[in-house]
């Protein structure tokens, strides 16, 4: 269980004015929950994810995982990056092995494990290719395999499908769902797409900007497993209602924002 308490963070922008990235956020992520963070750009959703990952410091508040305070990256968490963050010089196999290698897993064992995951994400036959030879969708499959290879309890995903085209994105969403339905990890998934947030999440956390705050948490009542009938879900009444509701909220945030800008 991830517990976030009164988390605040203020950056100083280059012209010296303070920017309130997070203004006192409280959030609990349950075990085996798929939680999606949704919000306009600048709402601090990625910043908060990086804090959970232990990559980024904060000013006030606490983050604990199963009661232990987060002080840095740990083996219980792994992260999937928006720009994939693959090593361009390493093969698919070596990229998937990367985390295991850093943790000192012996070569035979880590390659066996990597092979399993490469098969799971459907990249068999591409083991010795380099990232430059793969499409964006395939690169992110490598990123997901690398994150899962170290057997984390928590998977942190930072707009993982933001850099791929729409069709690939839908395929990856379905695959992520079916992987998750099997391993039931705790997932915190950052996105700016309402459809993606609703389709994947058990709950959608809607954040607003300046300062970054949680404006609403929406339960998604769609039945699981969802991977077998994504198209049907998207035509369901619940799905339509939730996305419409989220859009109303986001639109009012945007018009508020515009009003603030106008006053300035």
């Amino acid at each position, binding site marked *: 269980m991830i517990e976030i308490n009164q988390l605040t963070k203020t950056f100083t922008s280059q012209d*010296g004015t303070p920017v309130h990235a997070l203004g006192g956020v409280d959030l609990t992520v349950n075990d085996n929950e798929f939680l999606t963070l949704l919000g306009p750009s600048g709402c601090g959703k990625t910043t908060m994810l990086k804090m959970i990952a232990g990559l980024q410091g904060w000013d006030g508040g606490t983050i604990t995982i199963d009661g232990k305070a987060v002080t840095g990256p740990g083996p219980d968490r792994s992260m999937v990056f928006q720009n994939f963050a693959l090593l361009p010089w390493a093969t698919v196999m070596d990229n998937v092995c990367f985390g295991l290698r850093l943790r000192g897993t012996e070569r035979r064992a880590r390659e066996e494990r990597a092979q399993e995951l490469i098969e799971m994400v459907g990249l068999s036959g591409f083991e010795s290719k380099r990232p430059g030879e793969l499409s964006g969708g395939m690169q992110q499959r490598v990123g997901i395999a690398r994150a899962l290879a170290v057997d984390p309890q928590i998977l942190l995903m930072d707009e993982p499908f933001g850099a791929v085209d729409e069709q690939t994105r839908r395929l990856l969403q379905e695959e992520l769902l079916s992987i998750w339905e099997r391993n039931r990890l705790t997932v915190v998934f950052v996105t700016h797409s309402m459809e993606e947030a609703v389709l994947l999440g058990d709950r959608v956390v809607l954040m607003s900007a300046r300062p970054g705050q949680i404006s609403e948490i929406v339960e998604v009542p769609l039945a699981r497993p969802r991977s077998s009938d994504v198209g049907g879900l998207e035509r369901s009444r619940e799905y339509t209602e939730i996305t419409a509701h989220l859009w109303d909220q986001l639109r009012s945030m945007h018009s508020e924002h515009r009003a603030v800008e106008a006053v300035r």
Partner: protein
Amino acid sequence: MTAIAQSTTPRTSRSVPRFRLGGVGMSALSLTLGVLAWELVGRVFALPFFPPFTVVVGTLMEMIGRGDIVGNLAVSLSNLVAGFTISLVIGIVVGTAMGRYWRVRAALGVYVYALLTAPSLVFAPIFFSIFGAGQGSIIAVVVMYSTFVMIINTASAVQNVPAAMLEMGRSYGASEWQLVTRVIVPAALPTMLAGIRLGMGRAVLGMINGEMFIAVTGLGRLVTQAGKSFDGAAVLAVLIVIIVVALGAVGLVQMVDRALTGWVPDTSKEKS
């Protein structure tokens, strides 16, 4: 509390407000330290080839007083301006043609690369044999040094103009000449200017090396002369003048660059 030690990446350190010297302040501090170290080493070791800074400045003043510097500087600058201007014209015309027409690129590409790679000063004896021991040879050396880097940068800039921009131009009925002058050259300008800056740097090298080889005029000859009479202070004095000329010339191109390409967003600009 900040639970996590600040990482080594510059990105996170930005969040910590901290006193920082600007680029100019840092350079000034660094140069002052350098000059102090120079003076100290010069005084303590008293090497004939490494006199202290103050002695070198004294010698420089003396040379200026005698009129050694101004005349030679003028000659050197005229070599530089003449050579660079010729290179600039060749660089832009040939480079644009190479970037725009594949036949020109096929005809010249390999040779331009070869001439860029080859040590330019080996051509000096050839120019010497054609133009004799005069300014013509030195200007030819300057051209040899600076032309090819400008051709190659211009060619790649022109070749990399987005196809969509050309299609846009054609859709408004632009002729080939209009396309080149109104769309291609302006779009290629930032990269071209990066090449022109490199070309200016190389032109200064060509000027000095040419003058040292064909030792009849200019700062290059002055250095050689001072060396022959084992006058370390004079060598360093002329070297200071040369460095000022080099920095000034490159700085001038940078100023022009900034004035002409203000529309380019900072992030996409090549850092010098």
